[in-house]
């Protein structure tokens, strides 16, 4: 085929419009924007590149051009694979496939028909450098992972694979309406504009309409039979010209966008547009879809941000499911077209809308032109009028329904549940009123009798609603007329005054019932809001209390299931990021723990869906764009920095998850829980780091202990022992004795070191367990002095004890250690010959014990640091232990609920005091 096409290759405009915070009113390149661009470029570097071959209609040669490009790449040595190509029986195109690797399509079966589909998983597994996937707008058959092919392509690109694809202008979402208007053909398969504008490269394949028609006639586009049909409908010359124009314009827009991006990148700020923000209000009527598309076009023309909102009033809560689905669908389309969407609720659509518009700094509001009989305008203010009245500086755009297109009547709001009991009660009230009136008649004026009926009617209006109150009013009027107004027992009225009575009664009934209903509705809306706020508040408070991921997960599941009937589980990834079967799952509020050996298996390939949701940080499964045929929805627990896991939710009735407020609540719960879980994870990580620092320190101390503190005595022992063995004869008795003394002394020193190491392990366990008993401190001091006989040699010890010190509750062995550590400490840090004083004094609720030496004391400011682990007064001292003695004392005394302190005594020397409570803890 000759290539008469003109090709315009356009670089890629921004992946998405630079996100600006809503309060930003000017467009100077602020740091956030620049950061976003850097991030943008980083993600683009990891992502594959998407190239779109873009055309006005089928038959312009997109597939041909794409395959040619693919062949060129292949010739350059690129790993090219054909993922899927639509041949339409065109031999020229088919010839181009020759020599290219083709991915086998995935067989699918739908309602007994065998189908084939592009195999996404095979493509991801094959991982070519460049993949060819025709027809971006194609809708996948049920059973594929995504409903749309463009979603497959997005995943491929995200996985780092370059993709070539084709698309026609009529498939662009925002142009859908325009194309439909021009051609009269409603295109069902659409591609969101953002996918198109996110493409790294767009190549326009342009073919003049006449040539296209020639090719059609030659049978190069469709097989001849189909071609004739096509020529009569879609391929009219007028259509082709219009479509070509649209395609050229779309391409030109990209050029424009590219230039704008260049300007922003290079800080050329002169022509930056004013910041527009457009709000479109959608409702249940089909016109809304048009509104959304118009808004999208307007937003893209003015480079504005735009929002699509749905205002739910109490009346609309009762909409039928189909209408609600349509609203959700409209909002989803709006989201795909780049809008921010919101669900608002309020009593009045106009007021809520204006409120929201003002808080979000909206400059234009788009609403639909109401389709309704003119007479209603006289009685009821339309939404448009109300909006215009309240809008202030905001522009209101009113879009009309299409001429000639019959807009289906707005859906009727169904009546609420049967009210027959209310009508019966109304009858009863009227009957009572009649009874009372009969008793009164004759004795009271008729005007008073009518008051009884009025009272009854008012009661009915206030309690039972409009219908019953009207019934009550009419019945009351009739009965009053029949029974009490002359002529009696006939409906005739002699006095026209009574007509006024009737009218007043009817009006009062209507008015009061309306007011009562309004009041009730407002109360119920307020209650609902209050409930939701309370729920979220309670939730965040509860979440803050949970300390482990597991607790948080159970809590989340319980809360989700309190509003949705079904089963749920939190699925967490293992260390490698593979989602695991849950340890617990909960079915309608009754938690079932899976046995520890067998985790509750998630049915079918749902675990795979959960994995997908986790990997892509997007929801998947039921009611989503990804694997919608699943019976459960999988929502990722996205925290600020990472995805914590996935919530699997299988509702008993799948429609529960389509209700926006339900899903909104679930998502709010999930967000809060995810943040709480991240907090827990971070706290755990921080704690781990702390523990690591501590254990690192411990390791160092141990290493130095083993290398120095142990080797020194060992060296002496080995030296002395070997001397004794090898040169026994040469040694005199005196020298032998000296060596033996050294041996013994050094061995005892090692024994002390081992004792210290044991203490270290006791301390690092973190908790001291006491075996409480009654301890006589005098006895304990005596025992310690006996045990430390050798250590205290050369230090006269004086005792100042009361004659009968009270017994204290405590652990004798532990307290002995406190005393001996303090005494050893005193002996070690003071010169020989200096005295050590031990004192005890009983207070009213505690016993105080003091150990005082007459050495140099310690440096001021050391008072508290002395009790820290590994603190050593003189680090290089050969006599050193591990600096643990006092830390152990502190830990033991505090385990006894006592206190310990150190000070330099007034007369010189260090003094340590500790107290022990006299009463055992309760």
């Amino acid at each position, binding site marked *: 085929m000759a290539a008469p096409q003109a090709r315009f290759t356009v670089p890629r405009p921004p992946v998405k419009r630079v996100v600006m915070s809503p309060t930003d009113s000017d467009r100077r390149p602020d740091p956030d924007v620049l950061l976003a661009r850097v991030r943008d470029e980083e993600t683009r570097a990891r992502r594959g590149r998407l190239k779109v071959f873009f055309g006005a209609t089928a038959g312009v040669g997109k597939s041909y051009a794409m395959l040619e490009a693919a062949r060129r790449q292949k010739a350059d040595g690129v790993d090219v694979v054909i993922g899927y190509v639509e041949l339409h029986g065109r031999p020229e195109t088919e010839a181009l496939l020759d020599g290219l690797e083709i991915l086998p399509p995935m067989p699918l079966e739908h309602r007994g028909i065998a189908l084939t589909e592009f195999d996404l998983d095979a493509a991801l597994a094959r991982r070519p450098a460049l993949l060819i996937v025709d027809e971006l707008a194609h809708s996948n058959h049920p059973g594929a992972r995504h409903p749309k092919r463009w979603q497959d392509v997005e995943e491929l690109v995200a996985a780092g694979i370059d993709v070539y694809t084709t698309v026609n202008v009529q498939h662009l979402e925002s142009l859908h309406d325009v194309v439909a208007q021009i051609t009269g053909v409603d295109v069902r398969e659409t591609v969101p504009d953002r996918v198109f504008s996110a493409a790294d490269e767009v190549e326009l394949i342009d073919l003049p309409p006449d040539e296209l028609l020639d090719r059609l006639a030659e049978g190069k586009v469709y097989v001849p039979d189909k071609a004739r049909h096509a020529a009569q409908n879609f391929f009219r010359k007028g259509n082709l010209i219009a479509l070509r124009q649209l395609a050229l314009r779309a391409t030109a827009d990209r050029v424009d966008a590219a230039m704008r991006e260049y300007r922003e990148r290079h800080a050329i700020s002169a022509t930056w547009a004013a910041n527009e923000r457009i709000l479109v209000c959608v409702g249940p009527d089909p016109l809304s879809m048009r509104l959304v598309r118009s808004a999208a076009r307007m937003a893209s023309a003015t480079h504005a941000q735009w929002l699509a909102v749905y205002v739910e009033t109490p009346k609309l809560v009762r909409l039928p499911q189909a209408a609600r689905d349509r609203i959700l669908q409209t909002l989803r389309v709006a989201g795909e077209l780049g809008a921010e969407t919101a669900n608002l609720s309020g009593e009045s659509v106009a007021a809520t809308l204006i409120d929201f518009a003002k808080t979000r700094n909206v400059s234009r509001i788009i609403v639909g032109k109401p389709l309704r009989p003119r007479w209603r305008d006289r009685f009821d203010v339309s939404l448009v009028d109300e909006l215009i009245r309240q809008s202030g500086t905001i522009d209101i755009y009113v879009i009309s329904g299409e001429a000639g297109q019959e807009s289906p009547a707005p859906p009727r709001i169904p009546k609420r549940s049967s009210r027959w009991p209310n009508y019966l009660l109304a009858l009863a009230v009227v009957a009572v009123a009649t009874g009372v009136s009969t008793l009164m008649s004759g004795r009271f004026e008729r005007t008073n009798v009518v008051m009884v009926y009025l009272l009854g009617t008012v009661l009915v209006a206030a309690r039972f609603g409009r219908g019953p109150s009207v019934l009550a009013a009419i019945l009351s009027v009739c009965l009053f007329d029949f029974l009490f107004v002359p002529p009696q027992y006939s409906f005739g009225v002699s006095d026209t005054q009574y007509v006024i009575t009737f009218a007043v009664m009817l009006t009062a009934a209507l008015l009061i019932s309306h007011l009562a209903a309004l009041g009730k509705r407002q109360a119920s809306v307020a209650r609902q809001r209050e409930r939701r706020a309370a729920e979220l508040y309670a939730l965040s408070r509860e979440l803050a209390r949970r300390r482990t991921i597991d607790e948080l997960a159970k809590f989340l599941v319980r809360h989700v299931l309190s509003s949705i009937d079904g089963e749920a589980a939190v699925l967490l990834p293992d260390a490698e990021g593979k989602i695991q079967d849950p340890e617990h799952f909960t079915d309608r509020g009754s938690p079932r723990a899976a046995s520890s050996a067998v985790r509750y298996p998630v049915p079918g390939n749902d675990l795979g869906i959960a994995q997908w949701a986790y990997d892509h940080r997007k929801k998947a499964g039921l009611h989503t764009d990804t694997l919608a045929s699943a019976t459960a929805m999988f929502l990722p627990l996205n925290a600020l920095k990472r995805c914590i896991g996935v919530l699997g939710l299988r509702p008993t009735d799948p429609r529960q998850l389509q209700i926006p407020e339900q899903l909104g609540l679930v998502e709010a719960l999930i967000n809060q829980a995810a943040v709480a879980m991240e907090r827990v994870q971070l706290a755990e990580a921080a704690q781990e780091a702390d523990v690591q620092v501590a254990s690192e320190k411990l390791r160092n101390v141990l290493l130095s202990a083993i290398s120095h503190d142990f080797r020194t005595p060992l060296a002496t022992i080995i030296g002395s022992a070997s001397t004794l063995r090898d040169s026994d004869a040469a040694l005199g008795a005196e020298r032998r004795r000296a060596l033996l003394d050294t041996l013994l002394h050094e061995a005892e020193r090692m024994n002390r070191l081992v*004792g210290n190491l044991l203490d270290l392990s006791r301390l690092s366990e973190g908790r001291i367990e006491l075996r409480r008993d*009654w301890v*006589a401190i005098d*006895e304990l001091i005596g025992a310690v*002095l006996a045990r430390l006989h050798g250590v205290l040699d050369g230090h006269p010890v004086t005792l100042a004890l009361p004659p009968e010190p009270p017994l204290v509750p405590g652990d004798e062995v532990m307290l002995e250690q406190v005393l001996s550590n303090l005494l050893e400490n005193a002996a070690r840090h003071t010169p020989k010959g200096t005295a050590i004083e031990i004192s005890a004094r009983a207070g009213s609720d505690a016993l105080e014990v003091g150990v005082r030496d007459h050495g140099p004391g310690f440096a001021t400011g050391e008072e508290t640091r002395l009790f820290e682990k590994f603190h050593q007064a003189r680090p290089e001292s050969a006599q050193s232990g591990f600096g643990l003695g006092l830390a152990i004392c502190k830990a033991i005394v505090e385990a006894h609920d006592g206190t310990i302190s150190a000070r330099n005594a007034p007369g010189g020397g260090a003094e340590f005091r500790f107290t022990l409570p006299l009463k055992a803890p309760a």
Partner: protein
Amino acid sequence: MSEPRTTLLLIEDDPQIQRFLSTALDAHGYTLAVAGTGEEGLKAAATRQPDILIVDLGLPDISGLDVIRRAREWYARPILVLSARDKETDKVAALDLGADDYLTKPFGIGELLARLRVAERHLAARSGAPGDAKVRIGDVTVDLSAHRVQRNGADIHLTPIEYQLLTTLARHRGKVLTHRQLLREIWGAAHVESPQYLRIYMRALRQKIEADPARPRWLLTEVGVGYRLADDLASANTTI
């Protein structure tokens, strides 16, 4: 001396300690057999019937406590326990199971020999030799037959419980008695969980017996375990 050498059985798995004790005890006139595991030790004890059993609490097969429990079913002679430091509960358990005394590792040979001498004396007492009617505790004399306690000929007045406490310790002189054993002996089985009485009476007893009650020479505290009346080593040496 002409009397037969005392036979010992050491149940201990560490070869270095085995060697050290074999050498040292042989030099001091004891005949020592060694068993490396608890089961082996029990078998050897049954066949050899040693005079004194020395059991290490940390054995490779069964715990030393089990060895004591099972040995006590048929073995009535002294059992000496070797244990690691800061295992006071194990020591108390061993004593309550019927062990006679304990030694904390590491220990010097002198300590072991002292314990063995005490054990030998109790062995002699058990085999029918009449005990001394008089016990000398420093300058204090306890006349068991006359129920009289004197210091340098002057009477010391003891309450009945103090007297009982002193004589109980004296009967097992040199051995450690756990709080529980003392409480049971003096107050009866119902009071074994009330050691505070014991501390008060011990304090009172020290005031009367010891020259410096704050640094007792005779009535010794074994922290976390119990009490011991110190053996009068000088007199022990002279009597043998």
